[in-house]
């Protein structure tokens, strides 16, 4: 009697367990489904417009076929460069501070503010950059766009760097100190160096994250139909070009916008793959 009840409750439990596992598997598939759909859609719509000319040719006027987004590609590269020049050193330095002085009151304040900044809508950062970098000089500039993206990068890199440095065992810090390393030298040559593959990954992920940002650029970099490499002039960027082409009424421009979106997706995908490779090859060997 008792065993029969136990057996039935066991069956019930097993059934419930199987159902829950099935639900989580479905949820996991649903989580990745959008990316697969987006990729399929972009390839269908954009692949045909993708050619060498997309990267080397300038936009053509309305009515002319062909043309590319050379200026937008160059602009995106330049904006990422400016943003990284600001976001990486500040973010890595702040992350090192947070990880090495985790108990300090300033550290918990900085950590909290980073999280807030991380959650801030990117358009707010764009408005902020416009107020301080565009309005005073009365014209849009690549510099303002790059700084806006850099501000977005800082909290991403800070928190990721902190996490990576925390993975470095305390025993290594102790070993360096016991060898007569000064604290700063311990932090730089042992802790930071051990965490470096993780930090490189974090930096790449942050770059991937900002590469496609549009909102902070709308009233900072603004966009430019012409070739420009000047930091003080408005500059084009892939997301901006996609935006203006997508809302235009011309089919050729729509096709180019699809191609631009595909290029952005490919860029993020490649960066993510590189990041994975860096993490595997260095950390895998370093830790048992």
């Amino acid at each position: 009697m008792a065993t029969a009840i136990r057996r039935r409750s066991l069956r019930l439990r097993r059934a419930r367990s199987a159902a829950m596992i099935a639900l989580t598997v479905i949820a996991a598939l649903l989580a990745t489904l959008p990316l697969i759909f987006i990729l399929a859609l972009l390839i269908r719509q954009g692949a045909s417009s993708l050619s060498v000319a997309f990267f080397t040719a300038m936009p053509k006027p309305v009515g002319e076929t062909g043309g590319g987004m050379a200026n937008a590609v160059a602009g995106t590269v330049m904006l990422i460069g400016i943003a990284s020049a600001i976001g990486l050193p500040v973010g890595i330095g702040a992350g090192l501070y947070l990880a090495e002085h985790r108990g300090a009151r300033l550290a918990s304040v900085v950590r909290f503010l980073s999280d807030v900044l991380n959650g801030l809508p990117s358009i707010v950062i764009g408005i902020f950059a416009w107020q301080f970098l565009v309005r005073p000089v009365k014209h849009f500039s690549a510099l303002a766009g790059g700084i806006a993206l850099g501000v977005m990068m800082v909290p991403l890199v800070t928190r990721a760097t902190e996490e990576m440095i925390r993975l470095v065992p305390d025993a290594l810090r102790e070993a360096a100190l016991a060898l007569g390393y000064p604290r700063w030298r311990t932090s730089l040559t042992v802790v930071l160096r051990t965490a470096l593959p993780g930090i490189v990954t974090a930096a790449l992920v942050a770059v991937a994250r900002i590469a496609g940002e549009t909102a902070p650029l709308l009233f900072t970099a603004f966009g430019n139909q012409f070739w420009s490499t000047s930091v003080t002039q408005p500059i084009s960027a892939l997301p901006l070009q996609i935006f203006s082409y997508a809302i235009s009424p011309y089919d050729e421009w729509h096709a180019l916008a699809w191609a631009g979106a595909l290029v952005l997706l490919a860029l993020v995908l490649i960066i993510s793959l590189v990041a994975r490779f860096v993490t595997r090859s260095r950390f895998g060997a370093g830790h048992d």
Partner: protein
Amino acid sequence: MTEPRRAMTAVRVGAVAERAPDAVAHGPILEVRALDAYFGADRAVRDVSLDIGEGQVTAIIGPSGCGKSTLLRSLNRMHETVATARVEGEVLLEGKDIYARGVNPIEVRRRVGMVFQRPTPFPTMSIRDNVIAGFRAAGRNAPPRAEQHDIAEWALRRSALWDEVKDRLGDSATAMSGGQQQRLCIARALATRPRVLLLDEPTASLDPLSTQMIEELVYELRGDVSVVIVTHNMQQAARVSDRTAFMLLGELVEVAPTSRLFTAPADERTEAYITGRFG
């Protein structure tokens, strides 16, 4: 000459072990004087006075949590690297207090090396770079390559690792076995030519064969460098040390030549511990 002196020491040790330093063979390199070590309000080491003989191996034994590691970490100012930790009392290294005002803890740690329970090779450095890491940190400018190599070879030979790694000095140190990593850490500590080497349960994470190699190495090192080894393994203390100190609840109960501490302990608590009645 030595016999009467030993007998006298035994009486003294039994009577006032914490106050009167036991006689040491070659004169002390380290003199611990009335040392207290705290974690916050918790007093982990209580009024310990102890002499470490030059060129000797001194073992510190005692049950878990008796403060033996904390005492060891107070000898090269590593204790204070933990938040809220502090030290009172004196530790004289060659007659000079390492806790005196104006003494740089970094200088102390270069003269009093340390190896920990788990091997800690720097994972980003090659075997050679690991060995000379401390040596390089000491100098403002990196010494010439040839000199670096000589130091690495000397330290690796000294730690009985040279023959095993001489053909792969440029390889990552993390690919070595645990025992090799620990000998590498000893080589790394020796490369800065410390006067004293502190070993904090150096074989606790190693297999028996690696343990034996480390013990033989410790035995070999005596004479050149003074060794203080913390161990919870009494047999190990008996095998490698000249003198043994027994700690209990933060206090130093007894310190005596190893053979005597294990055969004729003066304090009944020591006897209870070494005969396995507690701990």
